[in-house]
């Protein structure tokens, strides 16, 4: 039951595009609750088909942006933590101190304005990057300046073995604890951005875009808004509950 919360929207998102009738976009009457299973949307398209198509991009952005932010953020944080000169550490970390002074959704909108056409993945990734870099640096600092790293360096071990394998390994636990909230945080940002029309086309088959575009017909065909809203709510609540349980059972 608990798993169904996130499994259903994930299945719809991943398998939906295969189940959707290919290329057969119905152009009927707008907000007609009688046509099809869930009625039609603002453009007269079948809502159920749009729901089937609308999750893939959101889930892809969530996964890719989280993975990308971790990849760069971990390397960034590890480089800063293992830097042997203090100046290098400062140069890497000081600029990131500015970012908490800006609310993340504002940062996202700002980046979208400055880089029009920049994909949502990159923008969401950039928003999460500083946080991860700072977390990794703080967690790695102790191991990075400990005797083991000294010894590994004296033995002439490679950068990969010293920095990534050993120091990186020491922060794995912290990262695992962070991963759950990070993934739901990415989903939240990606959905909010799509809702505001950032980085997506205005008639895209996307759950967040569907909610925004079909709001005008809320009274005529509420399912055009409720179906994608329930998908997003189930996915975020399900993932959050699952990660919360995983964290409490060490």
């Amino acid at each position: 039951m608990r798993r169904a919360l996130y499994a259903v929207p994930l299945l719809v998102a991943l398998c939906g595009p295969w189940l959707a009738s290919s290329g057969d976009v119905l152009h009927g009457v707008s907000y007609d609750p009688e046509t099809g299973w869930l009625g039609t949307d603002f453009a007269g398209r079948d809502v159920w088909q749009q729901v089937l198509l609308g999750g893939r991009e959101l889930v892809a952005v969530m996964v890719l942006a989280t993975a990308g932010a971790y990849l760069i953020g971990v390397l960034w944080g590890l480089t800063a933590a293992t830097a042997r000169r203090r100046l290098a550490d400062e140069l890497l970390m000081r600029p990131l101190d500015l970012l908490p002074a800006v609310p993340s959704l504002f940062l996202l909108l700002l980046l979208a304005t400055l880089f029009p056409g920049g994909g949502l993945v990159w923008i969401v990734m950039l928003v999460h990057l500083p946080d991860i870099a700072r977390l990794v640096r703080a967690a790695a600092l102790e191991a990075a300046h400990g005797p083991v790293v000294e010894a590994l360096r004296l033995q002439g071990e490679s950068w990969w073995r010293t920095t990534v394998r050993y120091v990186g390994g020491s922060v794995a636990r912290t990262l695992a604890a962070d991963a759950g909230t990070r993934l739901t945080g990415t989903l939240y940002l990606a959905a909010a951005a799509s809702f505001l029309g950032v980085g997506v086309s205005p008639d895209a088959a996307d759950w967040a875009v569907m909610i925004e575009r079909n709001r005008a017909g809320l009274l005529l065909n509420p399912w055009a808004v409720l179906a994608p809203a329930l998908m997003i709510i189930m996915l975020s609540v399900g993932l959050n509950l699952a990660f919360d349980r995983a964290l409490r059972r060490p």
Partner: protein
Amino acid sequence: MRPAGYVRRRLLLAPVQVAAVASAVFLLAEVLPGDAAVVLAGDDPDPERIARIRESLGLDRPLLTRFAAWAGGLPRGDFGESLVSGRPVLGLVLDALGPTAVLASATLAVLVPLSVWAGVAAALREGGRFDRALTAVGVALYAVPEFALAVVLIVVFGGLLPVTALGGLTPAALVLPVAVLAARPLCSLSRLVRAGMIGALASGYAAQAVRLGVPERRVRYVHVLPNAVTPAVQQLARTVDWLLGGVVIAEAVFVIPGLGTLLVDAVADRDLPVLQGLAVLFAATTVLVNLAADLVAFRLAPRA
């Protein structure tokens, strides 16, 4: 650390942070292709016309001159003019500030007492039915994006309450936006108050106070509560950061002409002067709120 020295250092650092954010936004906007003149020329991208607009806006002057002019205007409250309406940015921001301030203060007025009450009630009967319900609902509700919650609330309560602020920000029109904005922070704040309260109730000083015959209510609310809410105060500062973000969504859904709407419109029009002004305002607010939160936390539970 002595409070006076700490306050002085933080007060000195705050303008530096704001100035750095302001410069970063200005310079980022400058180095990217497609300046304001190209945007203004719009459907008629004739190079001559663009050059003329550029000249009239002073965009042909060197970067440093323009930066100095812009930064020099800031202390006088001169943020430049909107590219779209030609109105001063300060006036636009001040007009939009009203509705957002009403929305944010109404949210905080609901959020703070409610989360302290819920957290304390859950902590006093730890493991009880209310405690378990609060934890479950908290984890679930925390993850729901504001816009998704908003449309569900509109479908459920749309017949009873106004769903837009077109008729003005009346108390009835504020109910749904405030509910949407308060939902996520309520979850995190009440959990923090609960955890802090449970820890403080089990501490030695609480037991000692009870042993000395201090009335239980006094122990709970005068001795334990101030210590318990300290982490929550710092989380509240981060909540204000969310509120600025959540406000963007809530204003878009409920048609409230506040800062969020101004921001979304400026993004759509690539109205950089407005964006720069908002960046300065948001950065200043965030820095000040964090400073205030640190000072309040310090005052509630003075530590080394």
